[in-house]
């Protein structure tokens, strides 16, 4: 699990497993957040994992027949069926007594927030013993950058062209999923791999339906250079655009509280998809981010662990 490479008594403890399950040779774009997300998730889950992957970038990233980069069995499935397919796998594992194998649905935001929401809600409500992971790149990137209900306010996509950029809010999938009363629900960010892997492991150890919402930038669709993927990821959390929190059996916990959150403009200005935004729009986005952050803090105050 952990390893220390130096013999010097330095107090740095590496918590990220060294073993690489995902293979090189995948087909992701340069700087792809989704490929890093998979790499980290598999480090947390281990080899005894079966992935059900619907239409999304990862349907391509894994490689065409007969190749596969994941290093674990991959079951490609129809767009809206990630949750239902993985639930079928779960029941087959159960029937054959393979209770040490984890069935995981791995889908993009389109397959989760939009077309796959019904199957996701159904599987969550039934309490299927599986993990559902959405890697969120905030648009239909595999089909060439069309807006999804996860696309944030202000963003350019090919179906929300500059003059007609996305006007509404990003759908709050975490509130939808926590409303199902599932045992574990968490956000994670590829910019914070230790936190991400910790949550993956926690999800793995939990029984029942578990949901992970992973922030995964897309340089191609967000119009930023590939070498700032991590910078943007960290800014997303440092600006409270994408807070890190978890809801365990209804108990809220914000995992990273930013003392002095940076202005959202810092996050927006390094991405081409927000380049057209006027100061006014940036202000209203700041307001929306603040509102969601306040709401989350209140949720933690109301439903967090009592610390008296």
């Amino acid at each position, binding site marked *: 699990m952990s390893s220390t490479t130096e013999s010097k008594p330095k107090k740095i403890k590496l918590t990220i497993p060294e073993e690489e399950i995902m293979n090189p040779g995948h087909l992701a774009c340069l700087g792809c957040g989704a490929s890093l997300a998979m790499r980290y998730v598999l480090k947390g889950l281990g080899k005894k994992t079966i992935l059900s992957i619907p239409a999304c970038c990862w349907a391509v990233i894994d490689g065409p027949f007969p190749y596969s980069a*994941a290093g674990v069995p991959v*079951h490609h499935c*129809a767009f809206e069926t990630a949750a239902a*397919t993985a639930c*079928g*796998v779960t029941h*087959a594992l159960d029937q054959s007594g393979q209770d040490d194998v984890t069935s995981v649905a791995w889908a993009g935001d389109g397959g989760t927030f939009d077309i796959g929401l*019904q199957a996701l809600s*159904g599987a969550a409500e039934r309490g299927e013993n599986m993990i559902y992971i959405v890697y969120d790149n905030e648009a239909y990137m595999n089909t060439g950058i069309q807006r999804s209900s996860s696309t944030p306010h202000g963003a350019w996509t090919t179906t929300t062209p500059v003059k007609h950029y996305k006007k509404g809010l990003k759908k709050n999938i975490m509130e939808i999923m926590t409303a199902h009363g599932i045992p574990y629900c968490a956000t994670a960010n590829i910019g914070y791999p230790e936190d991400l892997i910790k949550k993956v492991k926690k999800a793995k150890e939990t029984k029942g339906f578990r949901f992970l919402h992973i922030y995964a930038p897309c340089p191609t669709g967000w119009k930023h250079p590939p070498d700032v993927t991590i910078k943007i990821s960290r800014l997303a959390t440092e600006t409270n655009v994408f807070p890190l929190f978890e809801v365990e059996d209804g108990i809220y916990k914000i995992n990273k509280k930013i003392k002095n959150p940076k202005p959202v403009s810092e996050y927006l200005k390094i991405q081409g998809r927000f380049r057209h935004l006027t100061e006014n729009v940036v202000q209203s986005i700041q307001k929306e981010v603040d509102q969601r952050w306040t709401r989350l803090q209140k949720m933690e105050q109301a439903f967090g662990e009592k610390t008296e």
Partner: protein
Amino acid sequence: MKKVLTGNFATAYGAKAARVNVIAAYPITPQTTIVEMLSEIVADGELDASFVKVESEHSALAACIGAQSAGSRTFTATSAQGLALMHELIHWAARARLPIVLANVNRAMGPGWSIWADATDSIAQRDTGWMQLYCENNQEVYDTILMSYKIGEHADILLPALVNLDAFFLSHTSQVVDLYDQKTIDQFLPPYNPKIKLDVNHPRSFGALTSPEHYYEFSYKIQNAQEKAKEIIRKVGKEFGEMFGREYDLTESYRCEDAEFILVNYGTLAGTVKDAVDRMREKGIAVGSLKIRYFRPFPSEEIQSVLKNVKAVGVIDRAISYGHEGPFFTEVRSNLYGSKASLYGFIAGLGGRDVSIMDIESMVDYMKKEQPSHLIWIGVKK
């Protein structure tokens, strides 16, 4: 053991006898009592299986696909709108070569809302790669579920099967069904043990992006399996006869040997046609019935050999391909290309309209008097 069972209960008992591992289904009239019965059988521990009560038919078949890929024998049941909702995954299951069995209670498509018999729902799934067949009575339903697993799971086939039974005429009508001894069934149908499945010890990718370099051959192999299935269906039908006393084939001909007129039919129409044939035979009319059990694979050889020397062939469709004619008629005519037989395409009983013995007799009457036609509506109110 003989029991009085509705077609739906015969279906549920068939799935139970096949010892399915995972059932995923969603209620829809008139299929619902299949789901209810199976749910009870599983809850009571009579069948060691998982019953996934999904939130839609789409998820029902998706869950079956997931479970079957991971090595389970799976079953689902639906009807009309539900089958239509599954359509995407109907393609998926066949292309993934998963021998799932789906019982479809043939029901008309809306609007207007109709829950009554009509084969348009299953005919619309024709080009998906599934084996597709129609049952005449509840015994055949029970037997067919068992045989469908055996046929589909054959290493050379690996295709799913759509087992059709007519709404209400079978689904809710009670008949005597002979249920077989489980030990003998287990000999006939051993546990499902696919060579390739989702397996953490042998990580593979299933259904990945496929270039034109490979896709074409996958399609070619499905067609080969469909062709080969004819042989396996005959073989399994014979074996079933030897073990359980009821033999099955792709078609069933009744009093066709010396017939001048043959009525081609499917589903519950077969029973009515056979009664009508007996009545007409008493009047000295040389009529026969050819029931088509399997629509896919299509029994071309049987059809040609039974129909080649007949004076006139009438095909009765409880379905229509709008803008053309009855779908079975199209297939039969294409198979009789070059034959001298006069061909008549009858449409009857859409949306559960009753098709009586008199209606059948009127068809033969029509064939005796009128010129051949591809589209003759029986009992339509104009």
